[in-house]
């Protein structure tokens, strides 16, 4: 035991020296590690007030529907990450329900001092609900209206929730510089709550969790197609690990070719091709097939193992993947034809890359100092692909893995063990506003829909 710790000591000394040299090098090459992520955060957020909607009829259902609507709208706006929401305690006593009720001077001066105001009314009548919503620029009295919308649907909580999501998305789209909101997006994940690892889906805020597959075996790495019509995942069956396909048009599993060997971690390109890791030729390498399963070709040819490919979601011309060819897993990028291979992590244990929708950033899980006795654990990192600058997003919060971008590029969903079990969490792409989405059993490997 003493001899063992002695050898650790020498190893520790060497790693310390290397690390110190790396630090010096990093300090010399770039003065700062914290890059601007440029994903819509931090630069003069819009100050927005969201007044509670008013009842427009005297139906008994109004109170319950209004509560759902106001809560969902507030949460969506808060989660958007581009607003500075004015706390409701600052609002004037007379909150408007109609454009004629808006008292501009009460809103555009302190205490609320807001520049934008969302307000409206909701009314249920004979099983139907009508919602009118407005967005006003209260600092511009001459032409204040930015947005005016009317929605009608059945008077149920779910329908009102969808209306609130849509209205929030309209506001986010207008004020967020033309980026579609994510309030109606879905997250697909693996849950063990039935006793087997099955594919589940939920709304982006954790609501409406429902089971998709009932294979009774182990399913992993669900990946929704860009058009949202199909879901690819890997599952173990008699022949081993194979790529499986679920169709949302048919609401059932559909046939997909079997390749033999171990087939893992499928990933969709923006134009509907699939990259995955297959050991059909002996070593686990990256392969690409068409969305139908045909026309397969191999991209990497080393001993690997190469796993977890992810496409550049904007161009579809690059693939990042994890390879253990030098020992510990590291992240590499290559063109989609397998050329121009580059290693982009220099140390530690790096897995689960995911490419941002604007093609500029990679997020991945990285344990930068891997080894016994080293501090730290797997954390989520963000890397600017062009400059190779990175920034750490999670700090001192258990094991974090499987990050995945939201379609607006402002959020990241990931799996974290910080609560004592593996659950799904989301955060803004600068690491703030961390929220837990799942609570039951064990939930892993989240994948955010493309739109």
């Amino acid at each position, binding site marked *: 035991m*003493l*001899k063992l*710790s*002695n050898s*650790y*000591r020498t190893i*520790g*000394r060497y790693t*310390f020296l290397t690390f110190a040299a790396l630090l010096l090098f990093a300090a010399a090459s*770039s*003065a700062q590690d*914290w*890059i*601007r*992520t*440029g*994903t*819509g*955060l*931090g*630069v*003069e957020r*819009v100050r927005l007030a969201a007044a509670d909607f008013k009842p427009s009829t005297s139906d008994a259902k109004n109170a319950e529907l209004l509560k759902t609507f106001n809560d969902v709208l507030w949460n969506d706006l808060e989660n958007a990450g581009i607003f500075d929401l004015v706390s409701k305690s600052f609002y004037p006593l007379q909150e408007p329900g109609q454009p004629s009720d808006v008292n501009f001077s009460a809103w555009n001066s302190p205490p609320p001092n807001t*520049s*934008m105001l969302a307000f409206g009314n909701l009314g249920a009548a004979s099983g139907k609900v009508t919602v009118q919503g407005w967005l006003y*620029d209260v*600092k*511009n009295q*001459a*032409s204040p209206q*930015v947005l005016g919308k009317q929605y009608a649907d059945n008077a149920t909580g779910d329908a009102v929730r969808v209306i609130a999501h849509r209205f929030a998305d309209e506001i986010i*789209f*207008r*004020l*967020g*510089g*033309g*980026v579609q909101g994510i309030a109606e997006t879905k997250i697909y994940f693996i849950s063990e709550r039935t006793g087997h690892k099955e594919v589940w889906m939920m709304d982006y805020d954790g609501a409406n969790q429902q089971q998709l597959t009932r294979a009774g075996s182990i399913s992993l790495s669900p990946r929704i197609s860009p058009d949202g019509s199909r879901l690819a995942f890997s599952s173990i069956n008699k022949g081993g690990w194979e790529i499986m396909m679920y169709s949302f048009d048919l609401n059932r599993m559909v046939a997909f070719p079997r390749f033999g060997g171990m087939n893992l971690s499928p990933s969709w390109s923006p134009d509907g091709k699939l990259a995955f890791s297959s050991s059909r030729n002996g070593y686990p390498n990256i392969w690409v097939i068409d969305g139908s399963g045909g026309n397969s070709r191999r991209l990497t040819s080393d001993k690997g193992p190469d796993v977890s490919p992810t496409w550049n979601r904007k161009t579809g011309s690059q693939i990042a993947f994890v390879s253990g060819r030098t020992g510990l897993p590291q992240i590499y990028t290559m063109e989609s034809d397998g050329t121009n291979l580059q290693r982009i992590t220099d140390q530690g244990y790096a897995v689960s890359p995911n490419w941002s929708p*604007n093609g*500029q950033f990679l997020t991945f899980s990285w344990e930068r100092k891997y080894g016994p*006795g*080293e*501090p*730290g654990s797997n954390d989520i990192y963000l890397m600017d692909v062009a*400059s190779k*600058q990175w920034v750490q997003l999670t*700090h*001192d919060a258990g094991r974090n893995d499987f990050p995945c971008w939201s379609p607006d590029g402002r959020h990241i969903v990931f799996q974290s063990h910080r609560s004592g079990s593996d659950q799904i969490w989301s955060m803004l792409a*600068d*690491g*703030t506003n961390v929220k837990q989405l799942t609570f039951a059993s064990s939930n892993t490997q989240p994948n955010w829909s493309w739109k």
Partner: protein
Amino acid sequence: MAAATNFDIYSEHAQLRRPLAWSFGLHVAFAAFCVLYAISLQGFRKNSWGSGGTGDAMGATLVSTIPLPANPEQTTNVLATESKGLSKSEPAVQEKEPEAIPIPDKNTKTKLKPAPVKSATQRKPEPEPAESNQIPYGEGGPVSGPYTMTAGGAKGGFGFTGSGGDFGSQFAWYVQAVQRKVTENWLKYEVDPRISDAKRVYLTFDIARDGHPSNVEVEQSSGVPSLDQSAVRALQRIDTFGSLPSTYSGSKVSVEFWFDYKR
């Protein structure tokens, strides 16, 4: 009764003698083994005494990995808020040493000091420039946390001209969205790190009905090629600003956007 008790105790002593001997023997053997083992180990690693090394305990290094915010600068005013003002702290009072009276030396010749030459071009002492950015104690900016992600000094301005009337005042929210989006997409690390300050660079571009920027041109260069390039790239990174307001009648708006760079 008493004799029987004595006899019992005696017999127990007799029973304990052998185990006690074993115990003593084994203790001695173990102590000897420990001493021998320590000596043999010392022989293996001769230079480990006093050689320092990094140590096995990781507890000591843990603190440096936690991103603690830096301590705010000390201000002399105890009533100051947490935010650091930009005023200088009062200089410490320097105590003057009592002047030493030189003891006259007989042997040294006194040198004549040359009279100060007054030149015609000699400058008058300039007054100290007043610092324009002084903020009184306690009235500094907001407390800076560890997550400040604002691009310091990243400012931009713009002028909108459209054919449909007074765009800027009618759709102020759209103008602000454009400003935010350009600022977000301007990556300052693309600028040559040796540049600390540069002239303003002006860009012009058009925003089409669907919100797509086009015809990006440098109207007035800053003189720093990398800064001009970073500004153009910021625009190239943007797919859309969101479609123009539906109540706007024109087909496009032209934008002049300036970038101020200061590191």
